[in-house]
């Protein structure tokens, strides 16, 4: 049953470019897909460990810049008269490096802040994103600052024996984003259902008890932060090579807020939550564009978010699962995927 639903959903998503010919809508779907990947990575931290990364866009932006610079090449002067010169590499190498570097940043940010956690983690992540934005803005020799990095090459897939397939069309990029999103989804699903996921859940629900049965807090949370940051980095790389121009505005706080809204509205701590929330808030601008001025749209987003959380307080997916999927005999109505703070406050 579950497998059938999964296959159906994937098939439906894969069929979209076959019948949707409007390039504007396809473009919206691609950028939404990229942000959905970002939201999924945020959900791994927020929904499964309870840690709010309010600078999550930093990992996304780092992925974008690393990938862009790897494929564009650069020539910068370092202190001491040393010049650092890098010749352009294939974009696919940039994509892999983006994952690696973003993951590494996740490791350091996690290591720094998880010893204290909670509000400190929020503050460290916000500061981190702001610092990275300032570096991108001011290290003009490397990043072109506000002039932006332009002409970023599209991703080219090496095909053994044939050559290269450069992904230029919207349809090709749609499938690229879809594949990356599916891999990220599967990775997160496997992770949270494994031994590691149970350790994360244990820490979120009852940290004292969790450590007393041998769960290492710092190691578990750092692992989640690394994987989360790496996935965000992958999304950033896709963004850079699809949009083909990036500037320091990519680090803007509003982009993190957008991801947080996607996760909260869809339902944090559920695998499908960020996908549903991401699709809603990613495609809402498209739906509202003919009827509303951009300024009014922001108000509408707020209204939609409030409406969703008013009707479905735990987010769309967990709340609907609770309402429509009957729990096993005698068990309280509690979705197995939904482990929210509100759930903890109301013992069933």
């Amino acid at each position: 049953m579950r497998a059938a639903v999964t296959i159906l959903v994937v098939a439906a998503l894969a069929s979209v470019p076959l019948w949707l010919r409007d390039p504007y809508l396809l473009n919206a779907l691609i950028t939404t897909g990229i942000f959905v990947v970002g939201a999924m990575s945020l959900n791994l931290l927020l929904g499964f460990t309870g840690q709010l990364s309010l600078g999550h866009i930093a990992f996304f932006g780092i992925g974008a810049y690393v990938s862009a610079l790897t494929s564009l090449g650069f020539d910068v002067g370092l202190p001491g008269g040393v010049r650092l010169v890098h010749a352009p590499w294939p974009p696919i190498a940039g994509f892999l490096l983006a994952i690696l570097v973003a993951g590494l940043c996740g490791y350091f940010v996690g290591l720094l802040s998880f010893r204290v956690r909670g509000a400190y983690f929020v503050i460290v992540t916000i500061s981190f994103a702001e610092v990275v934005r300032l570096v991108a803005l001011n290290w003009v020799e490397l990043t072109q600052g506000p002039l932006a990095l332009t002409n970023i090459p599209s991703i080219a897939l090496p095909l053994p024996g044939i050559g290269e397939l450069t992904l230029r069309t919207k349809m090709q990029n749609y499938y690229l984003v879809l594949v990356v999103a599916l891999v990220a989804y599967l990775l997160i699903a496997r992770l949270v259902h494994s031994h590691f996921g149970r350790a994360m859940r244990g820490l979120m629900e009852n940290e004292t008890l969790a450590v007393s049965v041998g769960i290492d807090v710092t190691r578990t949370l750092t692992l989640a932060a690394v994987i989360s940051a790496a996935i965000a980095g992958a999304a950033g790389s896709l963004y850079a090579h699809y949009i083909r121009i990036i500037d320091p505005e990519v680090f803007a706080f509003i982009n993190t807020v957008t991801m947080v809204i996607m996760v909260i509205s869809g339902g944090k701590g559920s695998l499908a939550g960020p996908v549903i929330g991401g699709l809603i808030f990613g495609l809402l601008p498209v739906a509202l564009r003919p009827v509303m001025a951009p300024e009014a749209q922001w108000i509408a987003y707020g209204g939609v978010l409030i409406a969703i959380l008013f009707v479905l307080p735990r987010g769309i997916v967990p709340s609907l699962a609770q309402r429509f999927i009957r729990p096993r005999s005698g068990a309280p109505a509690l979705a197995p995927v939904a482990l929210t703070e509100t759930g903890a406050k109301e013992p069933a």
Partner: protein
Amino acid sequence: MTARSIAMNIEQVAVRFGGLVAISDMSFTVGEGEIVSLIGPNGAGKTTAFNVMTGFLTPSAGQVTYQGTTLTGLKPHEIADLGLIRTFQRTGVFPNDTVYDNLLIGLHRQGRVRLLDAILGLPGARASERRLRQRASELIEWVGLERRAHDAAGSLSYGEQRLVGVALALAAEPSMLLLDEPVSGMNASETHRFVELIRSIRDRGITILLVEHDMPMVMTVSDRIVVLNYGRIIAEGTPDVIRNDPAVIEAYLGHGAGRA
């Protein structure tokens, strides 16, 4: 009593919170396979002692050694890795998870697999997962909670939650178990069953240190009792010795019971 090898040695441990002395100079030992109870009036420092032994608190002075390893400076999860596992007075379960999932989390120490194996679903990780599920079912059966296995742990009665807590601790494969007031909130028949449970845990070769207020229960189950009052040990011995110790009677009933 036959001479046992020492499992845990508490040497001159003191805990002070600012000016408040929670424990002053506490020394005692627990032998391998022994059931020892730590008793005393409220505020005597029993839970504080537990927190020191499990790494949640660093003592102001003194040290605790377990099977030859000094515990000072070790984190709680590192102490758990030595096989020293505790239960909690309250909040002893993961409330939003089913009893079954609680035990799977508790089996953390048995389920360590490599990250990549788990993500790729390699046979090693899958076999480990099957073993864990099997073990979780066994433990649930052992504490007699089969009917509640798929209920959220937070929805169980206090007595049942205590059982989940003990099963969780056992899931971590302890060589020594520290039980913090395990029968409080249980009725007489539940307590009786719990005593049986403690004995069968000991019969598996697990050393037990118990903090408890229920005197009949303590007197039945313990090999030896250590009595704390105001952070000091005031008596130590077999249940019979403790029952008749004047210092203990005074601590529990007050000085001059007639006036109380």
